[in-house]
Protein backbone atom coordinates (compact mmCIF):
# COMPACT_ATOMS: atom_id res chain seq x y z
CA UNK A 1 0.00 0.00 0.00
CA UNK A 2 1.33 3.32 -0.93
CA UNK A 3 1.92 5.76 1.88
CA UNK A 4 1.77 9.43 1.01
CA UNK A 5 4.22 11.42 3.09
CA UNK A 6 3.37 15.09 3.25
CA UNK A 7 6.31 17.34 2.64
CA UNK A 8 6.84 19.59 5.62
CA UNK A 9 5.89 23.17 4.96
CA UNK A 10 9.08 25.10 5.66
CA UNK A 11 9.07 28.48 7.34
CA UNK A 12 10.82 31.28 5.50
CA UNK A 13 13.85 31.23 7.75
CA UNK A 14 14.16 27.49 7.27
CA UNK A 15 14.13 28.10 3.53
CA UNK A 16 17.03 30.50 3.96
CA UNK A 17 19.25 27.46 4.61
CA UNK A 18 21.66 29.41 6.82
CA UNK A 19 20.00 28.49 10.16
CA UNK A 20 20.19 24.88 9.02
CA UNK A 21 23.87 25.34 8.31
CA UNK A 22 24.46 26.76 11.77
CA UNK A 23 22.55 24.05 13.63
CA UNK A 24 24.33 21.45 11.51
CA UNK A 25 27.68 22.97 12.33
CA UNK A 26 26.78 22.86 16.01
CA UNK A 27 26.41 19.10 15.76
CA UNK A 28 29.58 18.48 13.74
CA UNK A 29 31.70 20.93 15.70
CA UNK A 30 30.39 19.42 18.92
CA UNK A 31 31.72 16.05 17.85
CA UNK A 32 34.90 17.65 16.54
CA UNK A 33 35.78 19.39 19.80
CA UNK A 34 34.70 16.44 21.95
CA UNK A 35 37.19 14.27 20.09
CA UNK A 36 39.84 17.00 19.88
CA UNK A 37 39.75 17.76 23.61
CA UNK A 38 39.60 14.03 24.39
CA UNK A 39 36.32 14.33 26.24
CA UNK A 40 35.09 11.40 24.24
CA UNK A 41 36.99 8.37 23.07
CA UNK A 42 35.74 5.86 20.57
CA UNK A 43 38.74 4.35 18.83
CA UNK A 44 41.17 1.95 20.41
CA UNK A 45 44.65 2.33 18.87
CA UNK A 46 44.94 -1.38 18.26
CA UNK A 47 48.52 -2.59 18.31
CA UNK A 48 49.41 -0.23 21.17
CA UNK A 49 46.21 -0.62 23.13
CA UNK A 50 44.55 -3.98 23.45
CA UNK A 51 41.34 -5.36 24.81
CA UNK A 52 43.13 -8.39 26.28
CA UNK A 53 42.36 -7.62 29.92
CA UNK A 54 38.66 -7.53 29.11
CA UNK A 55 38.48 -10.80 27.18
CA UNK A 56 35.73 -13.02 28.65
CA UNK A 57 36.63 -16.36 30.22
CA UNK A 58 34.83 -18.24 27.50
CA UNK A 59 36.81 -16.47 24.74
CA UNK A 60 37.76 -18.90 21.99
CA UNK A 61 41.24 -18.10 20.72
CA UNK A 62 43.94 -20.36 19.32
CA UNK A 63 43.68 -24.04 20.33
CA UNK A 64 46.73 -25.30 22.18
CA UNK A 65 48.01 -28.35 24.03
CA UNK A 66 48.58 -28.18 27.77
CA UNK A 67 50.87 -30.00 30.17
CA UNK A 68 49.94 -30.93 33.68
CA UNK A 69 51.55 -29.56 36.84
CA UNK A 70 54.44 -32.03 36.52
CA UNK A 71 55.26 -31.10 32.97
CA UNK A 72 53.85 -34.28 31.45
CA UNK A 73 51.90 -34.06 28.24
CA UNK A 74 48.26 -34.82 28.70
CA UNK A 75 47.50 -35.82 25.13
CA UNK A 76 47.13 -39.57 24.60
CA UNK A 77 46.90 -39.29 20.79
CA UNK A 78 43.36 -40.70 20.72
CA UNK A 79 42.79 -38.56 17.61
CA UNK A 80 39.22 -37.66 18.56
CA UNK A 81 39.99 -34.00 17.99
CA UNK A 82 41.49 -34.80 14.62
CA UNK A 83 38.31 -36.63 13.62
CA UNK A 84 35.86 -34.06 14.91
CA UNK A 85 37.71 -31.00 13.60
CA UNK A 86 35.26 -29.56 10.98
CA UNK A 87 37.89 -27.92 8.75
CA UNK A 88 40.39 -30.77 9.35
CA UNK A 89 42.97 -28.43 10.74
CA UNK A 90 44.48 -30.98 13.17
CA UNK A 91 46.96 -33.65 12.12
CA UNK A 92 48.23 -36.14 14.69
CA UNK A 93 50.93 -38.75 14.17
CA UNK A 94 50.64 -41.14 17.14
CA UNK A 95 53.37 -43.42 18.41
CA UNK A 96 53.44 -46.26 20.89
CA UNK A 97 54.94 -45.73 24.29
CA UNK A 98 57.68 -48.38 24.72
CA UNK A 99 56.99 -51.15 27.26
CA UNK A 100 59.90 -50.19 29.54
CA UNK A 101 58.44 -46.71 30.07
CA UNK A 102 56.87 -46.13 33.48
CA UNK A 103 53.64 -45.02 31.86
CA UNK A 104 53.50 -47.82 29.31
CA UNK A 105 49.88 -48.41 30.32
CA UNK A 106 48.98 -45.12 28.59
CA UNK A 107 49.98 -46.90 25.34
CA UNK A 108 49.89 -43.93 22.93
CA UNK A 109 51.33 -40.47 22.72
CA UNK A 110 51.54 -37.98 19.84
CA UNK A 111 54.83 -38.08 17.91
CA UNK A 112 53.71 -35.02 16.00
CA UNK A 113 50.71 -32.79 16.62
CA UNK A 114 50.02 -30.04 14.12
CA UNK A 115 47.23 -27.51 13.90
CA UNK A 116 46.99 -25.54 10.68
CA UNK A 117 45.93 -22.10 11.88
CA UNK A 118 44.90 -21.08 8.37
CA UNK A 119 42.23 -23.77 8.49
CA UNK A 120 41.22 -23.52 12.15
CA UNK A 121 37.80 -21.93 12.66
CA UNK A 122 38.07 -21.56 16.46
CA UNK A 123 34.92 -23.63 16.99
CA UNK A 124 36.21 -25.30 20.13
CA UNK A 125 34.96 -28.79 19.25
CA UNK A 126 38.47 -30.20 19.89
CA UNK A 127 38.35 -28.89 23.43
CA UNK A 128 34.87 -30.33 23.96
CA UNK A 129 35.68 -33.75 22.60
CA UNK A 130 39.03 -34.27 24.34
CA UNK A 131 38.66 -37.02 26.97
CA UNK A 132 41.95 -36.11 28.64
CA UNK A 133 41.42 -32.32 28.79
CA UNK A 134 44.64 -31.91 26.86
CA UNK A 135 43.60 -29.35 24.29
CA UNK A 136 42.17 -25.97 25.17
CA UNK A 137 41.26 -22.81 23.31
CA UNK A 138 43.46 -20.05 24.74
CA UNK A 139 43.01 -16.31 24.44
CA UNK A 140 45.60 -15.76 21.71
CA UNK A 141 43.86 -14.26 18.69
CA UNK A 142 46.58 -12.48 16.69
CA UNK A 143 48.00 -15.54 14.93
CA UNK A 144 50.16 -14.27 12.08
CA UNK A 145 52.89 -15.56 9.84
CA UNK A 146 54.68 -14.64 6.67
CA UNK A 147 54.27 -18.05 5.04
CA UNK A 148 51.84 -20.93 5.06
CA UNK A 149 54.41 -23.12 6.80
CA UNK A 150 54.69 -20.59 9.61
CA UNK A 151 50.96 -20.74 10.19
CA UNK A 152 51.09 -24.45 11.05
CA UNK A 153 51.58 -24.81 14.78
CA UNK A 154 53.68 -27.85 15.66
CA UNK A 155 53.77 -29.60 19.02
CA UNK A 156 56.45 -27.36 20.48
CA UNK A 157 54.57 -24.18 19.58
CA UNK A 158 51.27 -25.63 20.82
CA UNK A 159 52.75 -26.38 24.23
CA UNK A 160 54.29 -22.90 24.29
CA UNK A 161 50.87 -21.31 23.80
CA UNK A 162 49.07 -23.79 26.01
CA UNK A 163 51.24 -23.74 29.09
CA UNK A 164 50.37 -25.68 32.24
CA UNK A 165 46.92 -26.67 33.36
CA UNK A 166 46.33 -28.45 36.67
CA UNK A 167 43.44 -30.67 37.54
CA UNK A 168 42.12 -34.16 37.05
CA UNK A 169 43.54 -36.11 34.19
CA UNK A 170 42.33 -39.64 33.59
CA UNK A 171 45.44 -41.22 32.20
CA UNK A 172 47.67 -40.43 35.19
CA UNK A 173 45.17 -42.07 37.48
CA UNK A 174 46.81 -45.34 38.63
CA UNK A 175 43.46 -46.88 39.44
CA UNK A 176 42.01 -46.46 35.99
Amino acid at each position, binding site marked *: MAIIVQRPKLKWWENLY*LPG*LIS*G*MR*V*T*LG*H*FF*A*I*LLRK*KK*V*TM*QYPEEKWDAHLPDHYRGAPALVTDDQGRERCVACQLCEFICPPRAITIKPEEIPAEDKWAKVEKRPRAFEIDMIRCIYCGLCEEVCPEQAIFLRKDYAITGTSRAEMVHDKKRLYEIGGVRTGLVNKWNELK
Partner: protein
Amino acid sequence: MDWHLLIAAAVKIVVFVFLMTLPLVAMSVWAERRVSAAIQDRVGPNRVGPFGLLQAVADGIKFLLKEDFTPAHVRKTYYWLAPALTMVPSLLTCAVLPFGSQLFGEKMVIADLDVGPLFVFAIASLTVYGIVLAGWASNSKYPFLGGVRSTSQMISYEISLGLSIIPLVMIYGDLNLGRIVFDQAQNGWALLPLWGEGLSLKGFILAIPIFISFIVFTTSMFAETNRLPFDLPECETELVAGYHTEYSSMKFALFFLGEYAAMIIGSGLAVTLFFGGWSLPFGWLTPASPDAEVPFLHGCIHILAFFAKVIGFILFFIVVRWTLPRFRYDQLMRLGWVFFFEIALANVVLTALLLWWLG
Protein backbone atom coordinates in the same frame (compact mmCIF):
# COMPACT_ATOMS: atom_id res chain seq x y z
CA MET B 1 65.96 44.28 -19.18
CA ASP B 2 65.43 44.84 -15.50
CA TRP B 3 67.09 41.81 -13.95
CA HIS B 4 66.19 42.88 -10.45
CA LEU B 5 62.46 42.61 -11.18
CA LEU B 6 62.81 39.26 -12.90
CA ILE B 7 64.82 37.71 -10.08
CA ALA B 8 62.46 39.11 -7.44
CA ALA B 9 59.44 37.73 -9.32
CA ALA B 10 61.10 34.32 -9.72
CA VAL B 11 61.96 34.17 -6.02
CA LYS B 12 58.42 35.17 -5.09
CA ILE B 13 56.95 32.53 -7.40
CA VAL B 14 59.15 29.80 -5.98
CA VAL B 15 58.58 30.80 -2.37
CA PHE B 16 54.90 31.59 -2.54
CA VAL B 17 53.70 28.91 -4.95
CA PHE B 18 56.07 26.02 -4.37
CA LEU B 19 57.16 26.53 -0.77
CA MET B 20 53.91 27.88 0.68
CA THR B 21 50.85 27.03 -1.42
CA LEU B 22 51.75 23.47 -2.41
CA PRO B 23 52.70 22.42 1.14
CA LEU B 24 49.49 24.10 2.24
CA VAL B 25 47.65 21.91 -0.26
CA ALA B 26 49.25 18.84 1.29
CA MET B 27 48.46 20.07 4.77
CA SER B 28 44.85 20.83 3.90
CA VAL B 29 44.42 17.30 2.58
CA TRP B 30 45.73 16.09 5.91
CA ALA B 31 43.53 18.57 7.80
CA GLU B 32 40.52 17.51 5.79
CA ARG B 33 41.06 13.89 6.75
CA ARG B 34 41.78 14.59 10.41
CA VAL B 35 38.92 17.05 10.85
CA SER B 36 36.42 14.84 9.06
CA ALA B 37 37.60 11.95 11.20
CA ALA B 38 37.12 13.95 14.41
CA ILE B 39 33.67 15.05 13.27
CA GLN B 40 32.71 11.44 12.70
CA ASP B 41 34.31 10.29 15.99
CA ARG B 42 37.17 8.56 14.20
CA VAL B 43 40.93 9.13 14.44
CA GLY B 44 42.13 9.75 10.90
CA PRO B 45 45.67 9.35 9.58
CA ASN B 46 47.96 9.53 12.61
CA ARG B 47 50.74 7.07 11.86
CA VAL B 48 53.09 8.74 9.36
CA GLY B 49 55.20 11.28 11.21
CA PRO B 50 54.04 13.32 14.20
CA PHE B 51 50.20 13.41 14.26
CA GLY B 52 50.29 11.87 10.78
CA LEU B 53 51.53 15.15 9.33
CA LEU B 54 53.70 13.34 6.78
CA GLN B 55 50.73 11.39 5.44
CA ALA B 56 50.66 13.69 2.41
CA VAL B 57 54.28 12.78 1.64
CA ALA B 58 53.47 9.10 1.82
CA ASP B 59 50.44 9.63 -0.41
CA GLY B 60 52.54 11.61 -2.87
CA ILE B 61 55.15 8.85 -3.06
CA LYS B 62 52.39 6.32 -3.58
CA PHE B 63 50.88 8.37 -6.41
CA LEU B 64 54.29 8.77 -8.08
CA LEU B 65 55.14 5.09 -7.88
CA LYS B 66 51.81 3.74 -9.09
CA GLU B 67 51.47 2.58 -12.66
CA ASP B 68 50.45 5.47 -14.91
CA PHE B 69 47.70 3.58 -16.64
CA THR B 70 45.95 4.93 -19.74
CA PRO B 71 42.84 2.98 -20.70
CA ALA B 72 42.65 1.88 -24.32
CA HIS B 73 39.31 3.52 -25.07
CA VAL B 74 40.23 7.12 -24.14
CA ARG B 75 41.18 9.98 -26.44
CA LYS B 76 44.82 10.14 -25.49
CA THR B 77 45.73 13.75 -26.21
CA TYR B 78 42.88 15.28 -24.27
CA TYR B 79 43.09 12.62 -21.63
CA TRP B 80 46.68 13.65 -20.91
CA LEU B 81 45.94 17.35 -21.21
CA ALA B 82 43.00 17.46 -18.80
CA PRO B 83 44.78 17.01 -15.42
CA ALA B 84 47.28 19.72 -16.28
CA LEU B 85 44.48 22.03 -17.34
CA THR B 86 42.88 21.60 -13.93
CA MET B 87 46.03 22.12 -11.91
CA VAL B 88 47.69 24.98 -13.78
CA PRO B 89 44.93 27.65 -13.62
CA SER B 90 44.53 27.03 -9.90
CA LEU B 91 48.18 27.82 -9.35
CA LEU B 92 48.21 30.70 -11.86
CA THR B 93 45.67 32.61 -9.82
CA CYS B 94 48.20 32.79 -6.99
CA ALA B 95 49.90 35.52 -9.00
CA VAL B 96 47.70 38.42 -7.95
CA LEU B 97 47.02 37.54 -4.31
CA PRO B 98 48.89 39.85 -1.93
CA PHE B 99 50.16 37.42 0.71
CA GLY B 100 52.05 40.00 2.72
CA SER B 101 52.83 43.69 2.82
CA GLN B 102 56.54 44.08 2.06
CA LEU B 103 59.81 42.27 2.65
CA PHE B 104 63.17 43.86 1.75
CA GLY B 105 61.24 46.68 0.06
CA GLU B 106 59.52 44.22 -2.29
CA LYS B 107 55.73 44.04 -2.45
CA MET B 108 54.68 40.57 -1.42
CA VAL B 109 52.58 39.89 -4.49
CA ILE B 110 53.88 38.12 -7.56
CA ALA B 111 52.15 40.38 -10.09
CA ASP B 112 50.83 43.71 -8.80
CA LEU B 113 48.06 43.88 -11.39
CA ASP B 114 45.43 46.60 -11.42
CA VAL B 115 42.77 44.06 -12.44
CA GLY B 116 43.30 41.53 -9.64
CA PRO B 117 39.83 40.02 -9.13
CA LEU B 118 39.16 40.03 -12.89
CA PHE B 119 42.38 38.11 -13.46
CA VAL B 120 41.43 35.58 -10.80
CA PHE B 121 37.99 34.97 -12.30
CA ALA B 122 39.31 34.83 -15.85
CA ILE B 123 41.93 32.23 -15.00
CA ALA B 124 39.90 30.30 -12.43
CA SER B 125 37.08 29.74 -14.90
CA LEU B 126 39.60 27.92 -17.12
CA THR B 127 39.66 25.01 -14.66
CA VAL B 128 36.30 23.95 -16.04
CA TYR B 129 38.01 23.06 -19.33
CA GLY B 130 40.17 20.53 -17.54
CA ILE B 131 37.12 18.88 -16.03
CA VAL B 132 35.10 18.95 -19.24
CA LEU B 133 38.03 17.57 -21.24
CA ALA B 134 38.56 14.85 -18.63
CA GLY B 135 34.91 13.88 -18.78
CA TRP B 136 34.79 13.87 -22.53
CA ALA B 137 38.19 12.30 -23.22
CA SER B 138 37.52 9.44 -20.83
CA ASN B 139 35.01 8.22 -23.39
CA SER B 140 32.78 6.53 -20.86
CA LYS B 141 29.42 7.24 -19.31
CA TYR B 142 29.97 8.48 -15.78
CA PRO B 143 32.93 10.74 -16.46
CA PHE B 144 30.96 12.26 -19.30
CA LEU B 145 27.98 13.00 -17.06
CA GLY B 146 30.34 14.45 -14.45
CA GLY B 147 31.95 16.69 -17.04
CA VAL B 148 28.61 17.94 -18.35
CA ARG B 149 27.36 18.65 -14.86
CA SER B 150 30.53 20.47 -14.02
CA THR B 151 30.21 22.74 -17.04
CA SER B 152 26.68 23.81 -16.27
CA GLN B 153 27.45 24.21 -12.58
CA MET B 154 30.53 26.33 -13.07
CA ILE B 155 28.91 28.52 -15.70
CA SER B 156 25.92 29.09 -13.41
CA TYR B 157 28.01 30.13 -10.46
CA GLU B 158 30.61 32.10 -12.38
CA ILE B 159 28.06 34.86 -12.86
CA SER B 160 27.05 35.27 -9.25
CA LEU B 161 30.70 34.96 -8.23
CA GLY B 162 31.65 37.84 -10.46
CA LEU B 163 28.62 39.95 -9.58
CA SER B 164 29.04 39.38 -5.86
CA ILE B 165 32.30 41.32 -5.65
CA ILE B 166 31.09 44.32 -7.65
CA PRO B 167 29.70 46.02 -4.50
CA LEU B 168 33.16 45.76 -2.95
CA VAL B 169 34.79 47.17 -6.03
CA MET B 170 32.26 50.02 -5.99
CA ILE B 171 32.97 50.78 -2.34
CA TYR B 172 36.75 50.68 -2.65
CA GLY B 173 36.83 52.18 -6.12
CA ASP B 174 39.80 49.99 -6.95
CA LEU B 175 40.58 46.67 -8.63
CA ASN B 176 44.11 46.35 -7.27
CA LEU B 177 43.98 43.72 -4.53
CA GLY B 178 47.03 45.17 -2.79
CA ARG B 179 45.40 48.60 -2.44
CA ILE B 180 42.07 47.05 -1.38
CA VAL B 181 43.90 45.23 1.40
CA PHE B 182 45.74 48.37 2.44
CA ASP B 183 42.48 50.28 2.56
CA GLN B 184 41.02 47.58 4.80
CA ALA B 185 44.10 47.62 7.02
CA GLN B 186 43.58 51.33 7.65
CA ASN B 187 39.81 51.62 7.73
CA GLY B 188 38.57 48.31 9.03
CA TRP B 189 38.07 45.02 7.26
CA ALA B 190 35.16 44.88 4.87
CA LEU B 191 33.18 42.63 7.17
CA LEU B 192 34.48 44.06 10.45
CA PRO B 193 34.59 47.88 10.10
CA LEU B 194 35.62 48.43 13.71
CA TRP B 195 38.46 50.94 13.38
CA GLY B 196 39.65 53.88 11.29
CA GLU B 197 37.10 55.47 8.98
CA GLY B 198 35.07 52.24 9.00
CA LEU B 199 34.00 52.89 12.59
CA SER B 200 31.14 55.15 11.58
CA LEU B 201 27.50 54.92 10.53
CA LYS B 202 28.58 54.79 6.90
CA GLY B 203 30.91 51.89 7.56
CA PHE B 204 28.23 49.90 9.37
CA ILE B 205 25.55 50.54 6.74
CA LEU B 206 27.95 49.54 3.95
CA ALA B 207 28.70 46.33 5.86
CA ILE B 208 25.17 45.13 5.01
CA PRO B 209 25.68 44.79 1.22
CA ILE B 210 29.18 43.49 1.90
CA PHE B 211 27.76 40.76 4.13
CA ILE B 212 25.26 39.79 1.43
CA SER B 213 27.99 39.67 -1.16
CA PHE B 214 30.16 37.66 1.24
CA ILE B 215 27.48 34.98 1.52
CA VAL B 216 26.93 34.89 -2.24
CA PHE B 217 30.68 34.89 -2.87
CA THR B 218 31.46 32.11 -0.41
CA THR B 219 28.64 29.87 -1.61
CA SER B 220 29.59 30.43 -5.24
CA MET B 221 33.18 29.65 -4.28
CA PHE B 222 32.03 26.29 -2.90
CA ALA B 223 30.26 25.59 -6.19
CA GLU B 224 33.18 26.87 -8.24
CA THR B 225 35.72 24.65 -6.48
CA ASN B 226 33.38 21.64 -6.69
CA ARG B 227 33.30 21.23 -2.94
CA LEU B 228 30.44 19.69 -1.07
CA PRO B 229 27.55 20.57 -0.81
CA PHE B 230 28.03 21.27 -4.52
CA ASP B 231 30.33 18.45 -5.59
CA LEU B 232 27.95 17.22 -8.27
CA PRO B 233 30.67 16.61 -10.89
CA GLU B 234 32.10 13.77 -8.83
CA CYS B 235 29.33 12.68 -6.49
CA GLU B 236 30.30 9.14 -5.62
CA THR B 237 26.82 7.81 -5.05
CA GLU B 238 25.62 8.58 -8.56
CA LEU B 239 28.64 8.91 -10.82
CA VAL B 240 31.24 6.48 -9.32
CA ALA B 241 33.92 9.19 -9.13
CA GLY B 242 32.62 11.61 -11.75
CA TYR B 243 35.03 13.10 -14.24
CA HIS B 244 38.14 11.39 -12.85
CA THR B 245 36.75 7.85 -12.82
CA GLU B 246 39.17 6.72 -15.52
CA TYR B 247 42.21 8.40 -14.02
CA SER B 248 44.81 6.85 -11.77
CA SER B 249 48.20 7.56 -10.20
CA MET B 250 49.72 11.00 -10.73
CA LYS B 251 47.04 12.15 -13.17
CA PHE B 252 44.40 11.57 -10.53
CA ALA B 253 46.65 13.29 -8.00
CA LEU B 254 46.76 16.36 -10.23
CA PHE B 255 42.95 16.61 -10.19
CA PHE B 256 43.04 16.17 -6.46
CA LEU B 257 45.73 18.81 -5.97
CA GLY B 258 43.96 21.14 -8.39
CA GLU B 259 40.78 20.92 -6.33
CA TYR B 260 42.58 21.74 -3.12
CA ALA B 261 44.70 24.44 -4.72
CA ALA B 262 41.51 26.05 -6.03
CA MET B 263 40.11 25.86 -2.52
CA ILE B 264 43.18 27.58 -1.09
CA ILE B 265 43.15 30.30 -3.71
CA GLY B 266 39.43 30.78 -3.17
CA SER B 267 40.04 31.11 0.55
CA GLY B 268 42.88 33.52 -0.16
CA LEU B 269 40.63 35.66 -2.34
CA ALA B 270 37.83 35.67 0.24
CA VAL B 271 40.32 36.62 2.95
CA THR B 272 41.79 39.34 0.77
CA LEU B 273 38.44 40.84 -0.16
CA PHE B 274 36.46 40.47 3.06
CA PHE B 275 38.87 39.91 5.95
CA GLY B 276 41.60 42.40 5.22
CA GLY B 277 44.18 40.09 3.64
CA TRP B 278 47.52 40.33 5.46
CA SER B 279 46.43 43.12 7.80
CA LEU B 280 46.11 42.65 11.53
CA PRO B 281 42.88 43.73 13.26
CA PHE B 282 42.49 47.28 14.63
CA GLY B 283 45.14 48.66 12.33
CA TRP B 284 48.05 47.21 14.30
CA LEU B 285 51.42 47.34 12.52
CA THR B 286 49.85 48.99 9.48
CA PRO B 287 52.30 50.93 7.29
CA ALA B 288 51.54 54.64 6.83
CA SER B 289 51.03 54.44 3.06
CA PRO B 290 50.92 51.65 0.45
CA ASP B 291 54.52 52.36 -0.55
CA ALA B 292 55.96 53.09 2.89
CA GLU B 293 58.89 51.05 4.16
CA VAL B 294 57.79 48.08 6.30
CA PRO B 295 60.21 46.66 8.88
CA PHE B 296 61.29 43.05 8.26
CA LEU B 297 59.58 41.71 11.38
CA HIS B 298 56.28 43.41 10.53
CA GLY B 299 56.48 42.01 6.99
CA CYS B 300 56.87 38.49 8.39
CA ILE B 301 53.95 39.00 10.77
CA HIS B 302 51.79 40.17 7.87
CA ILE B 303 52.59 37.01 5.88
CA LEU B 304 51.79 34.88 8.92
CA ALA B 305 48.51 36.77 9.45
CA PHE B 306 47.50 36.12 5.85
CA PHE B 307 48.19 32.41 6.10
CA ALA B 308 46.50 32.16 9.50
CA LYS B 309 43.35 33.66 8.00
CA VAL B 310 43.55 31.40 4.95
CA ILE B 311 43.94 28.33 7.15
CA GLY B 312 40.96 29.41 9.21
CA PHE B 313 38.91 29.76 6.06
CA ILE B 314 40.04 26.35 4.81
CA LEU B 315 38.92 24.81 8.09
CA PHE B 316 35.54 26.46 7.53
CA PHE B 317 35.44 24.89 4.04
CA ILE B 318 36.22 21.50 5.56
CA VAL B 319 33.65 21.69 8.35
CA VAL B 320 30.96 22.78 5.91
CA ARG B 321 31.81 19.86 3.67
CA TRP B 322 31.25 17.36 6.47
CA THR B 323 28.14 19.11 7.76
CA LEU B 324 25.86 19.57 4.77
CA PRO B 325 24.35 16.95 2.50
CA ARG B 326 24.77 17.31 -1.25
CA PHE B 327 22.33 19.47 -3.19
CA ARG B 328 20.17 17.83 -5.79
CA TYR B 329 21.00 18.91 -9.32
CA ASP B 330 17.84 20.95 -9.92
CA GLN B 331 18.19 22.58 -6.47
CA LEU B 332 21.71 23.60 -7.39
CA MET B 333 20.61 25.16 -10.66
CA ARG B 334 17.67 26.88 -8.99
CA LEU B 335 19.90 28.28 -6.27
CA GLY B 336 22.40 29.56 -8.80
CA TRP B 337 20.08 31.09 -11.37
CA VAL B 338 16.94 32.01 -9.44
CA PHE B 339 18.41 33.17 -6.15
CA PHE B 340 22.09 34.05 -6.23
CA PHE B 341 22.07 35.74 -9.60
CA GLU B 342 19.16 37.98 -8.56
CA ILE B 343 20.52 38.60 -5.06
CA ALA B 344 23.90 39.60 -6.47
CA LEU B 345 22.27 41.94 -8.98
CA ALA B 346 20.01 43.50 -6.37
CA ASN B 347 23.02 43.87 -4.11
CA VAL B 348 24.82 45.90 -6.75
CA VAL B 349 21.83 48.24 -7.00
CA LEU B 350 21.54 48.40 -3.20
CA THR B 351 25.20 49.33 -2.86
CA ALA B 352 24.88 51.99 -5.54
CA LEU B 353 21.85 53.49 -3.76
CA LEU B 354 23.59 53.39 -0.39
CA LEU B 355 26.73 54.99 -1.78
CA TRP B 356 24.64 57.71 -3.45
CA TRP B 357 22.68 58.30 -0.24
CA LEU B 358 25.77 58.38 1.99
CA GLY B 359 27.61 60.57 -0.48
